[in-house]
């Protein structure tokens, strides 16, 4: 038994900290590679859309940002559930580290959506289901950050924040299915598992950009979680040793 690879070891901040530090450059490098490839295909190679002309190219950031805004929230809710159920230290730190990037992704989704909506629908904004629920997602991120920042005791902050995350998770399927459930200006999904309504180069451009956003978000969260670990574990031996060294 004692030789078995132990996954739980990585739930310990002292083990996770150096591991995360070693992985950040790789995630960053891969994000750049995917980003350059995605931009090359999306902006230089992909053909004009027969309905939306060149304006459709906003899709190459709008869709990845929207996907990430929903996915990051799900990951935070997952960590919140783990934290509330098992009282693990790492989970609160992970949720905390992901929130700002998630909020930025939600903002980018709304921003690029407005810039896409204006030329295509004739309006920056409508109060329809898809747009409103995405706006609520942005408010959930901001609410989570404000709530946890307002509570001094980190354990209590994590608990309160975790509850907010779990209650708010109901919003994610609402965003996702809103284009099916309600009449909306927003178009349906362009991609699903069985078929795609897009030209092949367009699809590739979008998937590459999505991978870029994915890797970028992981790199950001890992960078942030390392700082949070030092801060929260400052009274432990491993952080003291880390700070006594070069502390990088």
């Amino acid at each position, binding site marked *: 038994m004692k030789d078995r690879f132990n996954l739980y070891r990585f739930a310990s901040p002292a083990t996770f900290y150096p591991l995360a530090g070693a992985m950040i450059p790789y995630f960053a490098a891969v994000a750049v590679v995917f980003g350059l490839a995605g931009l090359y295909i999306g902006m230089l190679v992909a053909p004009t859309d027969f309905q939306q002309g060149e304006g459709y190219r906003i899709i190459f950031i709008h869709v990845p940002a929207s996907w990430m805004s929903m996915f990051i929230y799900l990951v935070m809710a997952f960590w919140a559930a783990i934290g509330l159920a098992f009282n693990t230290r790492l989970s609160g730190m992970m949720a905390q580290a992901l929130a700002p990037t998630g909020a*930025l992704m939600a903002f980018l989704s709304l921003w690029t959506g407005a810039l896409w909506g*204006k*030329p295509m629908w004739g309006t920056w904004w409508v109060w329809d289901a898809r747009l409103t629920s995405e706006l609520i997602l942005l408010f959930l991120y901001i609410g989570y950050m404000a709530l946890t920042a307002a509570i001094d005791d980190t354990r209590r902050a994590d608990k309160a924040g975790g509850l907010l995350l779990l209650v708010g998770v109901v919003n994610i399927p609402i965003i996702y299915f809103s284009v099916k459930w309600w009449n909306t200006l927003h178009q349906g999904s362009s991609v699903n598992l069985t078929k795609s309504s897009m030209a092949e180069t367009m699809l590739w451009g979008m998937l590459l950009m999505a991978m870029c956003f994915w890797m970028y978000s992981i790199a950001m969260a890992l960078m942030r979680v390392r700082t949070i670990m030092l*801060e929260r574990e400052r009274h432990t031996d491993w952080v003291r040793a880390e700070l006594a060294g070069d502390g990088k």
Partner: protein
Amino acid sequence: MIHWNSFADFLAMGGYGLYVWGSFGVTALIMAVEPIMVARNRKTTIARLKRQLRAESRNASE
């Protein structure tokens, strides 16, 4: 394989330049500024924690 005839064509985005570049510009800005902010926050946090650690060890030795 390149879709555009000229650089001006590329910039104009078939008349959608403002919307397309407005989207890509703000995204690029955020993705450039966020890592800088995170790195800066890390630096100041480490400096503060080191200060606290030194203060604590001074107090302990007195």
